[in-house]
């Protein structure tokens, strides 16, 4: 009777930790769109108000070496647009600078 492994309990109904219903809001979306030729636009949508989009854009432009702009959308608020495919760049930047958690960033597109 040295090892009674069978007595260890396992809860099959334990939460799998997959559904974070609490955090369903507040995602930020990074999208990409094709332009003419092999050019693309990356857009960053859903950033909270407390961030200064202008400064963020400035940083983006400097770090990624691309141009960009802030677009005012009626329903979506301010959206940052950058030239080229900067999706992974944006995500890494936001994660590295601890601005946003990786789980809260949704990268769309192909």
């Amino acid at each position: 009777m040295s090892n009674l492994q069978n007595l260890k309990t396992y809860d099959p109904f334990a939460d799998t930790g997959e559904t974070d219903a609490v955090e369903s809001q507040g995602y930020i979306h990074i999208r990409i769109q094709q332009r003419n030729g092999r050019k693309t636009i990356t857009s960053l949508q859903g950033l909270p108000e407390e961030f200064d989009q202008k400064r963020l854009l400035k940083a983006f432009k400097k770090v990624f070496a691309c141009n960009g702009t802030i677009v005012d959308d009626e329903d979506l608020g301010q959206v940052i647009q950058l030239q080229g495919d900067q999706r992974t760049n944006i995500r890494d930047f936001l994660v590295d600078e601890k601005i946003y958690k990786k789980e809260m960033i949704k990268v769309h597109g192909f």
Partner: protein
Amino acid sequence: MSDAEISAKLENTSLNDDEFADFPKKKKSTKKVLFEDDLDSEAKPKDEANEFEDDAFSELKKKKKKSKKPKTFEDELEDKPAETEEVDESFLDLSSIKKKKKKSKKNMAAFEAELEENSTEKEANSESASRDVWRDSDRDYTYVELLDRFYSILRENNPELAGEKRKYTIVPPQIVRDGNKKSIFVNLPDICKRMHRPPEHVIQYLFAELGTSGSVDGNGGLVIKGRFQQKQIENVLRRYIMEYVTCGTCRSGETILTKENRLYFVQCESCGSIRSVAPIKTGFQAQTVKRSVARRAVA
């Protein structure tokens, strides 16, 4: 399947309840499954699911490796055509998918049993040996030995309960370039049928993700504006499957999508769980054509 049914089925195995209590833990004892388990618990679900879908698509590649392992006649039959097809990477019809599931299970089973050894004989020997070692001697059996015994019995009697993950396979999308600026997703209806999803839903998702538009042609193929390669569409499709097809509880792909009061629900056919899925949102659409051109198009 309800819980009651599952437990009833499990009781049909020639095992007592004590041994069954170890069932979920078995996963942790083998290397491969440990890895998957780790993913389950640590990595965020998205990544995990991603990998799962990766598996689905890379099935063909994996097959080659597995074909070295012991086969039944059935498997062999199934193996050969698949390998010849590898070039165009298409084609698993539904029946072959089923077979594949069986096969991957078998291989997994073999893998678990042998762990490190390669040859069949060794495997058989070691398995039977490990099974009998403690039976003859006086010493206490170890946990691992008992688990092996449990799993070999379970596999013999009802293999469908052996608990390995099934792979969800789907044909790769076929993308044909139409002129310079359009791509046609040829086998969309086929894929939709296999996923049990209305094409409209899939199309909506594709357009939202790709940030473009398009139309359906005469054969049901989807004309997408913009240049897209098969790999890119495959990625998007993979994400679609992850989000709208696989069951959140048992990860099976046998699910149906229903709409109630403007909300979409995914119901699993194999375990019966229902989960709600987010509606497809397009999000921000940047202007990609020249304003003058756009104005002319409207007028």
